[in-house]
């Protein structure tokens, strides 16, 4: 793809992600960390997040499977998941996590179930969006060689 075209596309996608609240400032921190020594850092971290975060959701589902039980435990797991999500700047996911935690604190099992559903949805949606974005981003980065140029 032609460089300018790529640039525009990347910029557009990126803007969308931020404008729609999928990503926050932390993602920019990640991008800033990408450099020659780690030319695929962002992708690496995102992949890491997705391969790791699955277990959180699994655990929560497992616990919730048998009905309302240990809200504190659920809260703890979700807290960790939230921390992880926040480290890649997954804004919407983070928000849904908080929602889940609120329900836990209130002992609201149904609320928890709903919130979990939202979390999963956002989690999956972000994944798709990031995959697309990162593809373009990565090509562009390779061409331009520096993160600043990618963003300009």
């Amino acid at each position, binding site marked *: 793809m032609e460089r300018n075209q790529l640039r525009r596309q990347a910029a557009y996608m990126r803007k969308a992600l931020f404008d729609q609240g999928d990503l926050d400032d932390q993602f920019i*921190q990640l991008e800033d960390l990408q450099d020659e020594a780690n030319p*695929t*850092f962002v992708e*690496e971290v995102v992949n890491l997040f*997705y*391969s790791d975060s699955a277990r959180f959701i699994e655990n929560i589902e497992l616990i919730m499977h048998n009905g309302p039980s240990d809200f504190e435990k659920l809260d703890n797991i979700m807290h960790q998941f939230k*921390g992880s999500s*926040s480290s890649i*700047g997954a804004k919407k996911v983070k928000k849904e996590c908080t929602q889940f935690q609120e329900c836990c604190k209130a002992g609201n099992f149904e609320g928890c179930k709903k919130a979990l559903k939202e979390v999963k949805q956002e989690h999956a949606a972000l994944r798709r969006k990031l995959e697309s974005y990162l593809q373009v981003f990565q090509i562009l980065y390779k061409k331009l060689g520096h993160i600043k140029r990618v963003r300009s």
Partner: protein
Amino acid sequence: MSLEVKPMFSSSSLKSGDGFSDQFPVGLRVLVVDDDPTCLRIMEKMLGNCLYEVTKCNCAELALQYLRDNKNGVDVVISDVHMPDMDGFKLLEQVGLEMDLPVIMMSADDSKDVVMKGVTHGACDYLIKPVRMEAIKNIWQHVVRKKKHEGKDKDFVNSGGVEDEDQKQKVFEDGDYSSSANEGNSNSRKRKVEEDDDAEERDDVSTHKKPRVVWTSELHVKFMNAVDKLGIEKAVPKKILELMNVPALSRENVASHLQVEQFFHHNRRVDSITRFMGPPNAAFGNASAFNGVDIQGLAAARQLQQQNLAAIQAAALGRASTKVSVSLPSHDNRNIFNFENPRLNNDNKQIDLLHGIPTTMDPKQLASLRQSASTFGHMNMHVPSPAVQNNPSMNQMLQQSRIQGLNGQSLNAAINSNHVSNLPANVVQSVLSTAIPSTVLGRNGIGNVQGPVYTSSSVPSSGVGLITEFPSNSFSFLSNSGTPAVTSKGMFQNMKSEIRGPRALVPSHGAFNELNMNMIQDWGMQNAGLTFESPLRSNMGVLGISPSTLVQQGFSSNSKNVQGQSKSPIVNSSLSENPLRNEDERIPNTGFENGLFPEQYIQEDDLMTALLKQQDGTGHVEGEFGFGGFHLDTLPQ
């Protein structure tokens, strides 16, 4: 010497004074602990971008173990609060007690009570996740602050210089204002108060709720100096305390330490005790009352053992007449060496530390053991007699002994008896190695830098080609040293694990495979349990192979191919893939294993299972090699 509060110090000297190089905080050695791999990776990168040397660990227990094994190998610890295996605050406490390193907590939880908990548990700072680069950049301040605290104490004792004291106090004030959750402030003020009034300070101190005193090597050395000076009969806590001149120490601390010392000397013959501690009755009451309480004594003074090991090693160093002309990064080291040397006269009455050890031992061995044992007379050497009865060989004796101290001493003796000629060089190397961990113990997360990371001030030129060869691609100098001293560490670990059993210790085997492997090479002894991929590993660091390559090689050659199992398209596959997550099979990847984990990723692994399986086959490993006195990381205390 004025201290400017900015990253670069215009320091007059690299070695003395504040001990910081001109490049500081470049090369600051950070240990980051977090069970979240995403966060860990990000932290690693951020810290790497600050040109710090990063070691990452996803398990608190392993982190603790790493810290214990690498005393003075880490400048600051950053730990998550919520971790599955150990509460972050507990880790914080332990680190504070055992190693007295600055610890920074981090968490997504920013609620006041959690932050408060961090402060009260002694955290230097509290970072809210997601952590930003700006927050990371300034962590060096905590190291400086802490060093200033310690430096003050030492200068106090060593130079007795009023100027230094004033200057350092001034420095305290300058540096104190920048941290958010600043422990340093209260500490510095407290110390100032304490120093101002020697007589009253102890009362003040004892009424404060202060952390339990850790009897580090330096403290112990001062203690022993004081005791020696006073003479056994006069060595009462109050006088000892006065002589020691450590502000934060109370009479009670000294008194209890004295008691502990007594505990450990009860097995000695009277003459030896007289030599070092005076007649048993004089200061210690009825020593015989202590007989048979080995285990308790052991438990009580466990902390001391590690430091004693350092002293043992120091003693051995001195004993080998090594002119260790190393200017070590901290005063501590010098203390140890200085302390030991005066004691190394063979006129000492032989202490029969081998009380209970059968005379079926080779008399020559026994003699040499005794000889070296005398050196360590004042150390906490405790011999559990019953366990050793049936073992004619020293190996087995070591195996069955339950105290590190004993092991160290006996092994050391073996070293001395068998390999004296080798000792100096090895020792020097080990000392140097220990003194210069920073150049190597780090990962290559630093941009495209291939140059040296933090070159510690104390790098002497002689015989340490180890250091210069290493690119920032973290690989342990130890792997190349192939010295018995180095490997002894591995043995210590092995013994410890064997003796103690807890899982947390066992994995350390993995860390020292390299060492043991070298050991095998050196001594031509086969230790099946510790065999590892030797050719691969011994070359890794020097060649500066890129991290990803190393990781893959390392994996494929030994355990099930973890990399192969990786499903996600990560380029620099870190070791934190889910397939790796197997709670029971992890290794602490300490700096010594950097050949395998160039990122110095301390994490258990399937590798460990393989190693452990091998380990299980062999019962005793260490004894044969006769090392053990040189627990590297405890050297530069």
